[in-house]
């Protein structure tokens, strides 16, 4: 221990990681280990370390939060207040006018945000449902069946995700314009489904692999059909994985810009991220309106993520990472 104490000075953060983190972090039965260093002679160093970590965490969290919060704060200020550079945090007059404007309730006949919101919602939800249905079938097939070229097909599927949206948008734009799919919700939905299928397959495949095959087999022996065994045994167990895949798919569709900005034109199809561009003119930008719209875009995503935050992490760790 004394040796570690010496090196603490050299590498405080790491020393703290290695020395005083109870194994498994939050496991309650092991958390008693956290008190152990108190008996050590280098108490001041440990204390210093603990506070050092706290300060670092605080600073890091501030850096993470502030840019977003600043924009949200500005959504409640008038354009004049923003342009006049009122003091940043001091309580200036806050107003809901921006939101009224954005929803066309104020004096200005604004940008049809309500329509954009509905478009975004319809496109995101529909494409998520379809992508998850397809991804469920694909992921289940990859997890449960053995067939030729399985690995090749899987890698091929993943590589299709490596094509950046903007590179895809040119050829898709041309083909969609032949098919008459430009500026239709269906056209955008099809593209988003394709964008989300590979990742959904990947995540869902990972989750099904975690569930022992024998469970479904036992159900089949008990007289279930394969189909029943799937719905009654395997599906409920993979639910949280499927949910996290759905959230990823929804967020991707909700936030997508590069493809939507080319494939949608009118009020009937434009999504919220594309609508954001309506606030910029050649030389002027309606900052207040943009901030308000930013809040409108972010709120559903935030609520959704906070509710399912646990699943999100589980989804990332179990579905994707474990080999």
């Amino acid at each position, binding site marked *: 221990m004394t040796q570690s104490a010496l090196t603490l000075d050299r590498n405080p953060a790491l020393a703290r990681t290695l020395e005083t983190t109870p194994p498994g972090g939050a496991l309650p039965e092991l958390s008693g280990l956290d008190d152990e260093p108190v008996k050590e002679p280098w108490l001041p160093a440990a204390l210093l370390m603990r506070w050092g970590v706290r300060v*670092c965490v605080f600073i890091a969290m501030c850096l993470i939060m502030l840019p977003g919060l600043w924009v949200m704060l500005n959504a409640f200020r008038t354009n004049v207040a923003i342009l006049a550079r009122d003091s940043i945090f001091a309580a200036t007059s806050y107003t809901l006018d921006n939101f009224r404007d954005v929803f066309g309730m104020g004096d200005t006949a604004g940008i049809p945000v309500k329509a954009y919101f509905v478009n975004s919602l319809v496109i995101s939800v529909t494409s998520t449902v379809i992508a998850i249905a397809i991804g469920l079938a*694909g992921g*289940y097939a990859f997890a449960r069946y053995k067939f030729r070229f399985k690995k090749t097909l899987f890698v091929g599927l993943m590589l299709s995700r*490596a094509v*950046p949206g903007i590179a895809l948008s040119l050829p898709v734009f041309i083909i969609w314009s032949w098919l008459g799919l430009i500026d239709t919700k269906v056209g955008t939905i099809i593209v988003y489904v394709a964008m989300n299928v590979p990742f959904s397959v990947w995540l869902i495949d990972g989750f099904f692999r975690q569930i022992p095959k024998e469970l479904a087999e036992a159900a089949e022996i008990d007289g279930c059909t394969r189909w029943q065994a799937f719905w009654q045994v395997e599906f409920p167990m993979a639910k949280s994985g499927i949910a996290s895949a759905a959230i990823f798919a929804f967020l991707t569709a909700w*936030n997508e810009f590069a493809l939507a900005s080319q494939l949608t034109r009118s009020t009937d199809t434009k999504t919220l991220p594309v609508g954001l561009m309506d606030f910029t003119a050649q030389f002027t930008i309606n900052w207040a309106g943009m901030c308000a719209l930013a809040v409108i*875009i972010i709120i559903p995503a935030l609520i959704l993520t906070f509710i399912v935050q646990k699943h999100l992490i589980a989804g990332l760790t179990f579905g994707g*990472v474990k080999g």
Partner: protein
Amino acid sequence: MKLLRKLPPEARLLLPAFVVILVVVAVPLLFSLYTSFTSYRLVRPETIWNVVWFKNYIKLFGSSDFWWAFGRTVLFLTVVLNLEMLFGLALALLVNQVTRGQRMLRTIMMFPMMFSPVLVGFQFKFMFNDNIGIVNHILQNWFGVTQAIPWLVESHLAFFSLACAEIWNSTAVFAILLLAGLMAMPQDPLEAARVDGCTPWQAFRHVTLPFLMPFVYIAMTIRSLDVGRAFDIVKIMTNGGPAGRTELIWTLSARAGYEDARMGYANAMSYVAVLLSIAFTVHFFRKLNASRQFLNEVDA
């Protein structure tokens, strides 16, 4: 329909996924490969049959604008991915230390991930605005900087601002994956290292880090899968300006395709962009497999 029934169940299950990918990704990509050999212009549809073979590519590779954009893209991705990895690792190590309120910290940590890249672009454009942005505001009020710094107008600063936006947006992906890795890590090897008299740095370097490497590369693979996201940010923040100094391949090809309507040329360029991002993905995927194999060998 009869043909469908004859297929084995796994093929029937996989069919929808591959049909969708074929229709929306594979066919358009093949088509764009074809048009990249033609002088196709959207305004003159008949030019799609005018095959010019490698003329577009020769023009492309002879264009200094393209090579600058290409180099800038590679530089941007390398810098951004590495910094995100470092910050993500630091953040994960920090949060892993905290025993109380860790769930809340994790939630805060993921906050930027919820922001759509286009929003991040707008938000940082606002923050770095030389006139009303908060960055200059703070510099002037608290640090006594007298002149307004033109963050988005001066070319190096613009590049820096773009990198800031991209890093802010995506560090969370690394942090969350690495944190998951830290939490999944078995403690016995660490204990053993301590008993053997390893310094904390040695234990980190030879025990923790090798264990984390697969997680690092998974994060790199995931991120390189959506490298094109930087398009949104660049498009909003600088739109390739000032004077093309922040032009990346994606913004350049979008400009050639939609503004100049030179689809053939633009498709040639986006084909290069696709190959570039596939190269990034394959590179990280191979590293991932190598690091996994290394771990398995140690285990065995």
